[in-house]
């Protein structure tokens, strides 16, 4: 009724009609300003993309090599007398048997090495230190092979691997090379005989720690990281959601809740190393939990993720329109029913998105883990989260500090794998948000 009667000021009423064809100079300079602004934006994005591309290209170029490992085909005589003296074929004897001797014999025969000790030593250096483990695994998987001569593929040493991958200059003077002339000649012969070539490096994904790069893998780190993510999910999600629901739905607005809110926001900004110190002081020193255990790492990362989950949950609870609450209250739903039937289901996609993003951050976190002993040389898989393990980023940190050329490419490969995990998690968060995005 009254809307139409808005008073018009004298100035509005008296203004001359505006011309559409405006001062050309002003228009042109305005368009130029817009174009300039757009150009700045594009330049900024290009700048970012350039470094991102650089990062990826370097990583792929360096890390790609680690996916392959030079392996040697040897015709090994699985001599029953060596493997199972007295005809006893059981796990204990097979585990303790001397596989290195078998491999070395086969290698000597292949290369035609006599009894010269120096020659022998040089020949043996072509084999990986872990090659006996590989042979042991083959034999233990199929004991019927015992007594036969079978062709097996075992890892060559890291020096051979770097030579095959062309990472060693052959024209250096012999005394500056890790491989002597004779060894290079052997390698060339083996390659020519099709006995030495690059094959897919499965060990990279399943093996534990090893000081021989060709035997080192991320298996323990991947499992450790998974355990940690599990612990984060099981602690940070319920605790965070409970805290957020309380703060949003039940807590009175007063000085205390304001204080808590400020502190939660501050907690999200605390440097991660501080959480590591906290974990060291509380979980290790006070509660006496085991060092290097994923459960401790997971708890520390939970502390870090908690504020993220709380903030995300509160935001998504706030985003539930009040009209939905009123509707539910209006038909006689209790407060708990409003929360569990309406608010939380509607907030769930947001909660999960926040949690996944928080977990992705936690997955890549290294500093706090260094303090609670996750920098560990762990060969065996952790059976439970209480057993020693490492984590993906810590594995990267450790490999990055190793001097061998073969560890450099493994570092890049590990970074790529960590990035792949992160991309998958973030993509899941984006999909979740897309899928459940609602409009009221």
């Amino acid at each position, binding site marked *: 009724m009254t809307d139409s009667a808005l008073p018009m000021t004298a100035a509005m009423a008296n203004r001359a009609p505006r011309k559409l064809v405006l001062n050309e100079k002003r228009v042109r300079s305005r368009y130029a300003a817009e174009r300039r602004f757009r150009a700045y934006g594009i330049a900024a994005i290009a700048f970012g993309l350039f470094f991102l591309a650089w990062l990826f290209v370097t990583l792929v170029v360096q890390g790609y090599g680690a996916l392959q490992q030079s392996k040697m085909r040897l015709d090994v005589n699985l001599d029953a007398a060596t493997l199972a003296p007295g005809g006893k074929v059981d796990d204990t004897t097979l585990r303790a048997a001397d596989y290195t001797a078998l491999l070395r014999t086969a290698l000597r025969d292949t290369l035609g090495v006599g009894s010269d000790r120096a020659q022998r030593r040089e020949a043996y250096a072509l084999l990986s230190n872990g090659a006996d483990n590989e042979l042991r695994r083959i034999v233990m998987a199929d004991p019927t092979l015992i007594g036969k001569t079978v062709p097996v593929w075992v890892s060559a040493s890291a020096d051979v691997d770097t030579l095959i991958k062309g990472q060693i200059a052959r024209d250096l003077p012999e005394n500056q090379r890790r491989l002597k002339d004779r060894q290079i000649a052997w390698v060339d012969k083996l390659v020519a005989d099709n006995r030495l070539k690059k094959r897919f490096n499965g060990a990279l994904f399943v093996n534990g720690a090893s000081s021989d790069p060709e035997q080192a893998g991320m298996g323990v780190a991947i499992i450790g990281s998974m355990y940690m993510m599990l612990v984060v999910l099981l602690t940070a999600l319920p605790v965070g959601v409970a805290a957020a629901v309380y703060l949003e739905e039940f807590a009175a607005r007063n000085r205390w809740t304001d204080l808590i809110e400020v502190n939660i926001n501050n907690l999200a900004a605390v440097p991660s190393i501080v959480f590591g110190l906290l974990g060291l002081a509380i979980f290790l020193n006070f509660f006496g939990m085991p060092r290097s255990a994923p459960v401790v790492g997971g708890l520390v990362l939970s502390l870090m993720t908690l504020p993220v989950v709380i903030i995300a949950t509160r935001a998504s609870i706030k985003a539930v329109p009040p009209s*939905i609450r*009123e509707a539910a209250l209006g038909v*006689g739903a*209790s407060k708990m029913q409003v929360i569990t039937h309406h608010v939380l289901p509607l907030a769930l996609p947001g909660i999960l998105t926040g949690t996944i993003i928080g977990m992705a951050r936690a997955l890549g976190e290294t500093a706090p883990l260094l303090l609670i002993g996750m920098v560990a040389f762990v060969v065996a898989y952790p059976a439970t989260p209480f057993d020693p393990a490492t984590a993906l980023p810590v594995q990267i940190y450790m490999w990055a500090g190793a001097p061998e050329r073969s560890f450099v490419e493994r570092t890049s490969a590990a970074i790529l794998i960590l990035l792949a995990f992160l991309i998958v998690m973030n993509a899941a968060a984006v999909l979740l948000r897309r899928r459940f995005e609602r409009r009221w």
Partner: protein
Amino acid sequence: MNTVAIKPVAATAGAASGNHAPKVVSQGVKVFYGEKEALHGVDLDINEREVTALIGPSGCGKSTYLRCLNRMNDVVEGCRVEGSIKIDGDDIYDRRIDVVQLRARVGMVFQKPNPFPKSIYENVAYGPRIHGIAQGKNELDEIVESSLTRAGLWKEVKDRLDKPGTGLSGGQQQRLCIARAIAVSPEVILMDEPCSALDPIATARIEELIDELRENYTIVIVTHSMQQAARVSQRTAFFHLGDLVEYGDTSQIFTNPKEERTQAYITGRFG
């Protein structure tokens, strides 16, 4: 606790007219939002099986009063209610009152249609389900069908009960909300400007519906449309600045108001 002001029944809230007994009796209802007093002592009796319209300029406290009747103000932070409101003789602000039961007895339809983002069926079935009204699926189906039928929506949606309620048109959504409210068999239905988001045809449909619902329910409706108040209500209450200025039969209020301010408002001189 609530201070019950014992006062003689106010003159404006003339005793039950005709053969209808008062369902809701409110005395000296004051509402505070923090320090601010939004209602200054309202005495108002609402008759059973009649439509009572609350009219008045924006901000005069119509919604505030309406939300007192199902204690929806409880969830507003800093809101305090004084005085007494009795439904069938029970003081609804008594400590022993179960608010959940109260809201099942006093249903509400909001200004903006607010179906749950669930299926049409679930929207209607939700109330009966949480109150345990239906024994088994068949009975629930019956309640859903009869509620939708009474809300005049059944024919339009019976083939798409599993489609989201938010996918209906505005008018259909509002009728769905009415169906949702009547599914828990309330005795009183509160409607806060139920047609303000609807076009004239949907409005007419809802008005018809209100007229039909009057048979079984006590209805209180807030409206900004004088015509609507005149069309659907039997009794009209005029609020101004937190006071109940005048209350009486709709025909009397619109043809022969006693108060100067009522006269001014219904003839459009302010508002």
